[in-house]
């Protein structure tokens, strides 16, 4: 592999392109216009398969084996697993939990007044444009949920009465 020059690869690529173009020209000139569109894979597959076989022979002459890929993947898996364990152990400590709790707390403490001010400003802006705010829409949605619950309770009551009536001897 070390002896192969870029020029050789370029020539190969060029030849493949020329051959493909000629084959496509032949294929298109032979096809009747009303026929179903040709599947390019049907044309390319035999060429690709043979090409693959030859490339495989070329690679096989090098000391490298495809097993190397599997070994590399196994190495990465083990590396990730090892990191996962280390991180898991770190995150499972009291210090980490304390640090995370403190960061979250400081975020919330700084967030609360900002959020309140922003909500107030948005509410005022929407009011100025005579548009409903999020809190107003939420209130309407809540009312609908409550109405649904009331209807359910009524349904339950009617159902219970009907069941009692059906059980009573006529």
């Amino acid at each position: 592999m070390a002896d192969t020059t870029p020029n050789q690869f370029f020539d190969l690529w060029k030849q493949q392109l020329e051959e493909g173009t000629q084959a496509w020209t032949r294929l298109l000139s032979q096809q009747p216009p009303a026929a179903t569109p040709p599947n390019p894979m049907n044309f390319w597959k035999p060429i690709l398969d043979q090409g693959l076989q030859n490339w495989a022979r070329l690679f096989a002459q090098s000391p490298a084996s495809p097993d190397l890929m599997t070994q590399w993947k196994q190495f990465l898996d083990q590396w990730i697993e090892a990191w996962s364990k280390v991180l898991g152990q770190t995150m499972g400590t009291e210090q980490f939990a304390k640090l995370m709790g403190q960061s979250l707390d400081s975020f919330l403490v700084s967030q609360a007044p900002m959020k309140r001010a922003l909500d107030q400003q948005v509410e005022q802006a929407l009011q100025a444009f005579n548009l409903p705010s999020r809190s107003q829409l939420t209130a309407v949605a809540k009312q609908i949920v409550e109405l649904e619950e009331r209807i359910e309770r009524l349904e339950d009551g009617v159902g219970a009465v009907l069941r009692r009536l059906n059980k009573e001897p006529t």
Partner: protein
Amino acid sequence: MGQERFADVVERFTDGFGPAAPSVSPETIKQWQEELDKNYRRLRNLHTMVTNPAEPKVGQTPREEIYRKNKSRLYRYASSRRHRTPLLFVPNLGISRPYIFDLLPNGSFIEHMTREGFDFYLLDWGVFGPEDNGLTVEDCVTKILPRMARKVLETSGTEELSVLGYCMGGPVSVSFVATHPEIPVKNYINMAGPIDFSKVGLFGLWLSKEHFNVDRFVDTLGSVPADMVKAGFKLIKPTMDLSTNLNLWWNLWNDKYVEGFQALNKWANEYVAFPGEFFRQWVRDFYQDNKLYRGELVMGGRPVRLSNITCPLFVVGAKEDYIAPPECVRALVGAVGSREKEYVELPGGHISLIAGRGAALHCWPKVSSWLGPRS
């Protein structure tokens, strides 16, 4: 040149490469050919994923909406019903969508159960908005679940039902079963549902009273936004994305794998927010005070006593579950009053216990073969 085939050109090139050819075994050549073919397929699938990403079709098992209450839906799946007792499946609320249980045809828990002849009902809690921030765990246990269970009984025309709780659906549904003796539950299954929260692992530590102020959290944010839920779950396994992408590249040549990955990836990136009050009660009563296991939980004025559960019980834990470790799931077996009870610990993690190829092999047949004769 035009008459010469590309393959011949490569062959001529390789022949002139050196004298090593005779020492190469046909097996090595074949191995390399397979490897090159895989790489070609990898590039082809990557190109398709980038330039023309297909929206995976999930949740394809036929179903009918039986009832809706606010955001929650009760679905009944089409089945060749061979078992009389219906099964109500109660998954987690918030966090993720329940189509993971019906992800792809020929590979989902729901499809397996319906094929096995179970009259299968799924409670989809839904996606909550700010108007639902007042919803509590107690509401789910005392208002939503009893209503859904009654609808199951009404529509299936039976006197009894089986209940299966998964993940958070475990402790929620177990609280319902323990407090509603008027609803006859014939069998109860808990899959990866934490019960003894003193053994709940990383989340237990992070959400403990010493480190997490749940009141400040809910009072400030109102709810737990989906992005925060995502951050929490990503943090618990930070290398997950790395290994997922590495495995994707490794298996990218496999069309079947890519199809499964796309569906799973869609699910894994669709997080669902928690209603604020639900989260407050969930963290305080379950994670911080462990009230369910201690018998101190009260729902709708009724004490939640796990010993009140006397129906046959089946508990499934996952060996590599870091969200609900097996020891906190198994605790239910010792806490109930059932005479007939069984615990199994299966390979897999919290999700792979119930979804994926491993689940089809280890978990689904176990659940259906336990429940079948009792239904």
